[in-house]
């Protein structure tokens, strides 16, 4: 790889944009979902590290829009618009939403991974953004890195190796 670019980092409940030759990554996704919105022609990608499905679950006065699927996705679409990308050109790749621990108790919090994935899919559908590929569920943590130049999402896990989707 001729990775001359830099790696743009996305923290927890955070979002950012990267242009080729840079790549964009987020580390240690567990129940959170990494959502990549990208345009293959302009080689620009945005990544959101979604922590919760819906901002109506938030109970604070000020909300961090990148934290929720329902606010993060439209906000990223707007940011990419400012970069001159029409929403209909956007494609999505998603990863994460694992269930890190198995519990017998049926608390809703315990199912947060699958719920995040469902919410992300719902909102991508709402904005008519097709999901090109995904690696969701399971019980492994993931570190993901997207390369806008190739449109590939690299996924690294501790127990199941590395793969590109």
């Amino acid at each position, binding site marked *: 790889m001729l990775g001359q670019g830099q790696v743009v980092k996305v*923290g*927890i*409940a*955070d979002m950012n944009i990267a242009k080729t030759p840079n790549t964009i990554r987020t*580390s*240690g*996704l*567990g*129940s*959170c979902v990494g959502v990549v919105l990208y345009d293959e022609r302009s080689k620009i990608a945005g990544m959101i590290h979604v*922590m*919760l499905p819906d901002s109506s*679950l*938030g*109970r*604070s*006065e000020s909300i*961090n829009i990148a*934290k929720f699927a329902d606010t993060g996705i439209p906000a990223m679409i707007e940011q990419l618009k400012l970069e001159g990308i029409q929403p209909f050109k956007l494609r999505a790749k998603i990863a994460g939403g*694992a269930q*890190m*621990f*198995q*519990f017998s*108790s049926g*608390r809703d*919090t315990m199912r*947060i991974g699958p719920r995040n994935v469902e919410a992300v899919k719902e909102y991508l559908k709402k904005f008519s953004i097709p999901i090109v590929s995904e690696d969701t569920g399971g*019980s*492994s*943590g*993931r*570190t993901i890195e997207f390369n806008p130049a190739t449109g590939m999402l690299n996924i690294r896990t*501790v*127990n199941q190796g590395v793969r590109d989707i």
Partner: protein
Amino acid sequence: MYEKKITSMHLDVLKEIGNIGAAHAATALSTLLNKKIDMRVPKVEMVSFDDMMDLAGGAENVVAGIYLRIEGEVTGSMFFVLPIEQANRFIRRLIQDDSFDFQTGAVSEMGASAMQELGNILSGSYLSALSDFTRMKIYPTVPALSIDMVGAIISFGLVEVSHISDYVIVIDTAINEEDVPNSESVKGHFFLLPDPESFEAIFQALGVQ
């Protein structure tokens, strides 16, 4: 928001909780392993989620993590996080099998169950000390074990807090074996993350306004 109401006196109270809890747990660990265990002075901090990962060695740091929920008059999440090498040493000693390794594909059931039991005993002694000190009823759930990136493990415990805030109050006590050279990467940690609603209850039980 809850972070604005916490004063330095409150942080001292929480530090004492970490002190008492972890001291009991470290004693239990030391007895189990027949080995000297060092405990650091606890840190109580209000940190962002990303900083929380840094406390645990960075989001991608691979650890053996025990997680349990606390129910009762105080609710919250508790983690006992060990660097893989340290977890290996502890379990090898416990099950007397020098070939045991969490990083090999198929972890023996014996080793995994020993790790779970270790988590059970340590969190039990931490929380019963906390319960005695505050005279509050605290019920831990059965601990669950995961060998994975610490970011993936701990973010699970941040879900409750994340409904309310982008910051978390963490009671962090680091432990270390006496005969192993000290470095940030080989430290084990107890992390206690009370749910935001529980701070009021804790302070009230201890007579702090």
